[in-house]
C-alpha cells in the first residue's frame, strides 16, 4: 500500500469511528462520502460494534429493570407502523 493510500485508509477509519461514537458534522460527512464513493455510505462496521456495545452494557445495567416503555408510547408506535392509524 502506498503512503498516500495508507493515509486515506487511516482517515477513513478515523471518520467511521467518529461517526459511530458521536456522529459527524457536515464537512466530515462530505469527506467520508468522498472516501467511500463506491461503497454503501450507510455501511459502517464500527456502528454495528458500537450498537453491540450498547446492548452489552444494557444487559449489564441493573437499572434497566425498571425501564418499561410507557403504554402511551407503545400506542403511538402502533399508529406509526405500517397498517396503523397514521397509514390509513
Amino acid at each position, binding site marked *: 500500500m502506498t503512503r498516500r493510500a495508507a493515509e486515506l485508509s487511516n482517515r477513513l477509519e478515523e471518520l467511521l469511528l467518529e461517526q459511530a461514537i458521536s456522529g459527524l458534522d457536515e464537512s466530515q460527512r462530505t469527506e467520508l462520502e468522498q472516501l467511500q464513493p463506491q461503497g454503501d455510505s450507510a455501511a459502517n462496521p464500527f456502528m454495528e460494534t*458500537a450498537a453491540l*456495545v450498547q446492548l452489552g452494557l444494557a*444487559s449489564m445495567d441493573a437499572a434497566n429493570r*425498571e425501564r418499561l*416503555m410507557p403504554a402511551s408510547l407503545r400506542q403511538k*408506535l402502533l399508529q406509526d*407502523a405500517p397498517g396503523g392509524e397514521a397509514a390509513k
Partner: protein
Amino acid sequence: MAASLLEQVAQGDQSAVGKVLDQYGDLVWSLARRFLGNSPEAEDAVQDIFIAVWSSAERYKPELASEVTFIATIARRRLIDRLRKNSRTPDSETYDESIAAQNPDPVNRITENVEVENVVRVLNDMPEQHREILSLSIYEGYSHSEIADRLAIPLGTVKTRVRRGLIHIREQLELDEPNPQEQAS
C-alpha cells in the same frame, strides 16, 4: 426456515409489527432513556427509531446480523443524530429497587443472543476504567470533554480510549465469528 419478524413485517404481516414491539420495544426505550437522559426526548427518539425500523425491514438479512443487532444499529444512528442536535440532559429519574423487583427485565432477552454474550465477555475482560469510559461515551452519550472532566483525565486520553476500545472489541468479535470452513467439516 420460518421468516424472522422483520422479514414478516417487510412482507406486510400486521401481526408481526406488534410482535416486534413486544420483543424490542422496551429494549429500545431503555437505550434511548439511558443515552438521552430525558423522557420526552427519548419518546420522540423511539418513535423515529421504529419508523426507521419499519422502512428498513426489507433490507434485513438474517445471515448478516441478528434482529436485535439490526434494530440496535438503527437505534444508535438515530440516537446520535438526536444527541448532536440537543445537549444531553441528566437522567432525573432515580432507580427504585422495589419497581425493579416487580418488573420483568426488559433486556433479558438480549443476553441469550450470542453476539451480545461475546461483547459482554470482551467488556468484562477490559480494565475497569476503559470499560467505564466506553460506557459513559457509547452507552450514556456523554461527550469526550464531559468524560474527561468527570474522571479527571486528559481529553486526549478519553478520545484514544474510546476509539481503541471500539477497535479492540471489533477485532475480538471478528475472532469469535465461526470459520465457514470449520462449519463445513
